[in-house]
């Protein structure tokens, strides 16, 4: 692909390329490097090279295996809910109903609140006996004064709910912009063809938005574990590790048990697993973007 017109472009690309190497590729390689050593921060002895021993340990570590399960739960349940609810909200927001302008603004609030604050908001909401949830339940004559964060399944549900609450508005916004790019006449034609509101969206919106839905889903999956601060504030990974995903377990190892090497092992393993799972989609998205940019 020697194109004389592209001569000199390397000088333009190089700074971005080097920055990317410095802030992404190098840290990953260093992390991998650390994971190959035995490092005891509290001793004066230097690091000892142990090869892949840390990786073997991973698969006999019950707490790690549990965190794997939690990770899968905390990625797929919230992302699935975010996509479905986001899509539905976008469909509703597209309707020209009174007050929709304000609704759209109100709606974005969870997305602009820092995650740690969102976690606190939810923590206050579900305070047993005093929070908004208890109050709301009492309006319907129910007595709800359980501590939801004290039981594994309900604690996980609270983390999932918070994650959905934080992540959905952004998804809805992306879906809405995709939805509004579909020609209105198609919906009118479908109305004449006898399609009801749901059918119009099912047969027209969803198929036409599919590329956007796939892209948003992949990126939400990659970002799903960014709910670290929410977990930190809400549950600290408990009770009994029920809300402890892989990155939280890595944090515990690195900063509480001071096992930096093991934390690096967990993080590197996680990186490889995520890349393996999403690479086909990412490559597809990149190719499509490239095609669209060229055409």
């Amino acid at each position, binding site marked *: 692909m020697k194109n004389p017109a592209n001569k000199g472009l390397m000088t333009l690309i190089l700074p971005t390329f080097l920055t990317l190497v410095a802030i992404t590729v190098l840290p990953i390689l260093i992390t991998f490097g650390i994971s190959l050593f035995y490092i005891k921060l509290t001793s004066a002895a230097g690091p000892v090279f142990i090869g892949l021993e840390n990786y073997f340990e991973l698969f006999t570590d019950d707490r790690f295996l549990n965190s794997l399960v939690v990770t899968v739960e905390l990625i797929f349940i919230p992302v699935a809910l975010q996509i479905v609810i986001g899509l539905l909200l976008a469909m509703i927001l597209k309707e020209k109903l009174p007050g929709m302008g304000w609704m759209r603004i109100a709606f974005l609030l969870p997305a602009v609140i820092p995650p740690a604050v969102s976690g606190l908001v939810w923590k206050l909401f579900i305070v047993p006996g005093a929070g908004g949830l208890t109050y709301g339940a009492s309006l319907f004559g129910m007595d709800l004064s359980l501590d939801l964060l004290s039981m594994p399944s309900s604690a996980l549900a609270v983390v999932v709910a918070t994650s959905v609450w934080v992540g959905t508005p952004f998804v809805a916004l992306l879906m809405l912009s995709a939805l509004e790019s579909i020609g209105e*006449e198609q919906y009118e*034609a479908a*109305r*004449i*063809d*006898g399609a009801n509101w749901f059918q119009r969206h099912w*047969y*027209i919106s969803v198929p036409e938005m599919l590329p956007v839905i796939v892209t948003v889903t992949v990126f939400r999956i990659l970002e799903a574990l960014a709910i670290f601060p929410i977990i930190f504030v809400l549950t600290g990974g408990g009770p009994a590790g029920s809300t402890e995903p892989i990155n939280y377990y890595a944090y515990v190892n690195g900063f509480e048990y001071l096992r930096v090497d093991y934390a690096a092992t967990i993080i590197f393993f996680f990186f490889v697993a995520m890349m393996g799972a999403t690479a086909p989609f990412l490559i597809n998205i990149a190719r499509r973007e490239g095609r669209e940019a060229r055409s």
Partner: protein
Amino acid sequence: MADVEIKKLTKSFGTVEVIPEMDLVIPDGSFTVLVGPSGCGKSTLLRMIAGLELQTSGDLSIGGVDVRGRDPSDRGIAMVFQSYALYPHMTVRENISFALRLAKADPAEIEARVQNAADILQLTPLLDRRPKQLSGGQRQRVAIGRAIVRNPEVFLFDEPLSNLDAALRVQMRVEIMELHERLKTTMVYVTHDQVEAMTMADRIVVLNEGRIEQVGSPLELYDTPQTAFVAGFIGSPKMNFVRGDIPERLGGDLLGVRPEHMTLGEGDTGWTARIHLLEQLGSDTFAHVDSEVGPLIVRCHREVAELVGRDLRVAAKPGMLHLFKDGRRTDAPETL
């Protein structure tokens, strides 16, 4: 097959009144063209017939059935849009059969009706393609096919040819007229192009600012326009208008003469004139003339080219005058 009857129909968008009050009957089996300049309310009227827009007040019935409050799919109509409005992710076959599949029709019947529509519109080889792989004309035929399979009582066309190039537009015009010949179904066709209206319609409804100016056959509108607006809107090039003393002497305020009803030569009757521009179309020649009563357009033979630059006379042929007072037609004398 059905007629469309509109009684005291009004439409406002907020405080803006688009259609003040309208009465109109579109006869069963007719090819009625709604024509008028942009913003005259013709598309709004069509969309109200379709049920895509609700009337503010008044009655609307199709085939004698009051359709107020009925869904678009329940009015016995089918519509063809300017943008074609095809579903891009579906094949031609899926596009055409969409309404039938939604209605859960018998698969064998769906196949038969799709095949029938494809035969009429010569779409059979294209049935498994997607809209993206079709030309503009083919896409419009698919849109028409989607309308045909529904066996509508009334076809509605909203400027269906506006997105096509000139040659294709002429071809599709003929195809739509042939379709009407074949199906004999009521067709309501919206356009801003008066040539389309003249060539396709058996009835034209001229609209201006939400009001009906005149309803009639193309030639009625051409020969006896009832208002100055219709006189100026129908016909290409436009009718020549003369204001001032001359129409006032005849009892009106506006005198109209069509370009082909004028003569241009070196005689001594008529208004003094000079050619300042010639438009050669091959079959016709249009002379743009500066005359003592203002600029005029005259249809001539091509030999008129020899007269450029000379002092000429332009005159109206006898019996071809149109006189208007306050915008309405009034009796005109045979000659000036």
